[in-house]
């Protein structure tokens, strides 16, 4: 073994007495669900918001992009910020899963499945926004290279084409990675299911997995390679997204710091979202035994590190804005602190940099409630950061005659809320049909921790 067994740490609570018990708990929401009013309420609220999203998109396609608050100079608004934000959240899942796998962290097993699912759903939400924000979404396919009667191709120098490939690859890859990790659990569900139809359904997706050592041999290798691929992929995806801004001429965007800054920011918001989902799942699906305070504490430390890096990034921006001495850049920094968006900017700094410093306190880290609330704030803060990246630069670029302020409309908020609802809705469905935790990996961890 390359890593010494972690003797002090037990990631699975002692209340678990057998492997079978693990499977039973994890399979329960799927095979023997008990739908409480809380479940129905959440489903109804998220379903309602999903409906709002559908209405908004219908309205959008019927009336045009003008229903949003964008204007002549601030041509990008909520959809782009939402895109970057959702994609950032979508980064944590695959990366947590892959990185923790590669470094053989045992606490991975309690998080990786739902984190990967979060990635899928968040990346899907993210992927929708650039489409919604197109003036003519029905011609989206023009950015795909395909044989056509015009004899035209995409314009490969555009960061949006890179985005398409990066996000497309990312969603495809994450789906594969997630599915491969799911196969042994699908087999487990197949084998536990009592009803024939359910058995068949899970059986079909389990591909006939039978846990053969020969298969495990290929599987483990393949899964690890996938994890190894995932890391550079994740880094590349948000770096490319950052190029939407960094590969421009605009003040405040054309910064070389953007790619790393975006990647860290993505992980930051992603980890925060993992905390929120972990807290909900733990409470809703009785996963207390698998998702313990220690997990929250571990993520809390990651969040703390990321918050410090974010703080340094912000400070770097200020420094270069001032030190570079360029008129427009300097003005932009002043504008952030004193302009009409200043309250949002202070909110961003508070939520992303200052508030997370509470995590230095062990007592704070060890409170699930505290870490969860903080994570929600971080997500708000990260959204503010995204919207300000879009707004501030476009509101104050080179020619003062073009300066404008963005005023969001009802539909801007509706689409954001709708996407949150749709995300939650998808998650509710997911938790109902697929194991939210990897039973076989938890079983293995339990076996190792209990010497079985």
């Amino acid at each position, binding site marked *: 073994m390359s890593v010494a067994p972690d003797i002090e740490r037990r990631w699975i609570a002692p209340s678990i007495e057998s492997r079978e018990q693990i499977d039973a708990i994890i399979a329960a929401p799927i095979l023997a669900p008990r739908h409480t009013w809380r479940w129905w309420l959440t489903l109804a609220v998220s379903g309602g918001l999903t409906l709002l999203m559908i209405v908004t998109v219908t309205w959008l396609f019927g009336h045009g992009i003008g229903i949003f608050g964008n204007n002549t100079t601030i041509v990008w608004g909520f959809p782009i910020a939402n895109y970057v934000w959702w994609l950032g959240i979508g980064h944590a899942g695959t990366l947590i899963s892959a990185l923790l796998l590669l470094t053989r962290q045992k606490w991975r097993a309690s998080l990786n499945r739902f984190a990967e699912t979060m990635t899928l759903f968040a990346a899907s939400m993210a992927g929708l926004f650039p489409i919604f924000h197109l003036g003519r979404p029905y011609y989206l396919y023009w950015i795909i290279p395909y044989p056509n009667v015009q004899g035209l191709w995409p314009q490969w120098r555009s960061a949006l*084409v890179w985005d398409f490939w990066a996000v497309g690859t990312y969603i495809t*890859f994450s789906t594969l990675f997630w599915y491969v990790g799911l196969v042994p659990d699908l087999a487990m569900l197949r*084998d536990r299911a009592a009803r024939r139809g359910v058995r068949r359904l899970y059986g079909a997706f389990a591909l006939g997995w039978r*846990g053969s050592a020969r298969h495990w041999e290929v*599987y483990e290798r393949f899964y690890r390679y996938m994890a190894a691929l995932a890391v550079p992929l994740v880094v590349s995806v948000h770096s*490319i997204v950052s190029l939407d801004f960094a590969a421009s001429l605009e003040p405040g965007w054309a910064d070389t710091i953007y790619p790393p800054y975006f990647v860290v920011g993505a992980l930051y918001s992603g980890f925060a979202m993992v905390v929120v989902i972990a807290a909900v799942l733990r409470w809703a699906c009785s996963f207390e035994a698998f998702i313990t305070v220690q997990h929250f504490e571990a993520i809390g430390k990651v969040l703390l590190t990321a918050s410090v890096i974010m703080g340094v990034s912000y400070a770097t921006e200020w420094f270069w804005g001032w030190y570079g001495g360029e008129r427009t850049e300097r003005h932009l920094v002043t504008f952030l602190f004193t302009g009409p968006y200043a309250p949002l900017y202070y909110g961003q700094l508070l939520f992303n940099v200052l508030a997370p410093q509470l995590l230095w306190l062990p007592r704070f880290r060890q409170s699930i409630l505290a870490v969860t609330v903080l994570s929600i704030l971080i997500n708000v803060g990260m959204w503010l950061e995204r919207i300000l990246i879009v707004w501030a630069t476009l509101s104050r670029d080179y020619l003062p005659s073009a300066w404008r302020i963005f005023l969001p409309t009802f539909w801007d908020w509706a689409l954001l809320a709708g996407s949150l609802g749709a995300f939650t809705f998808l998650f509710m469905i997911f938790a109902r049909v697929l194991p939210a935790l990897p039973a076989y990996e938890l079983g293995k961890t339990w*076996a190792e921790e209990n010497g*079985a």
Partner: protein
Amino acid sequence: MTGFLLAEYHTTHETLAAAAKAAEAGMPAIDVLSPNALEGIAAHLAPRPPKAPIGWVMVIAGGLGALLGYGMQWYSAVIDYPINSGGRGLNSWPAFLLVPYETAILSAAVVGLLGWLWLCGLPRPHHALFAAAVVERASQDRFLLVFNARDRSKAQIEHRLQPHAVYEIDA
């Protein structure tokens, strides 16, 4: 008699020990069914599972994917319809590196998945082993050493390897 004999164990340690013992005794198991991967089990199986070449498959696929990605851009932007975009060179190679990066990863992943399925012979919804009810537990909390019923007998296994139970499967 054709078919399989399955020796049931409850923990990894038991299973690994039994597999090792079987190999020592010259009656190595042909396979093990387990709910999770067992490290070091390969050495005790006969024939020994080969080291899967999946890494190479993915590397080659990735390389080809990158070439394809770059080639597509170069052909379309330089050969097929050269267009002056912002005064940039037709073959803007720095800008053209990002798509190949993604296509490389995408090809490696997709081909890797196909390779995994092919190497494992999956999907295979029906397999003779599924005949035994206990195999259902192998995806949860049971570990089953698989022997070829032609070579070994139930008694032999029970005697030498002390399983919790032995199951026979006719194929």
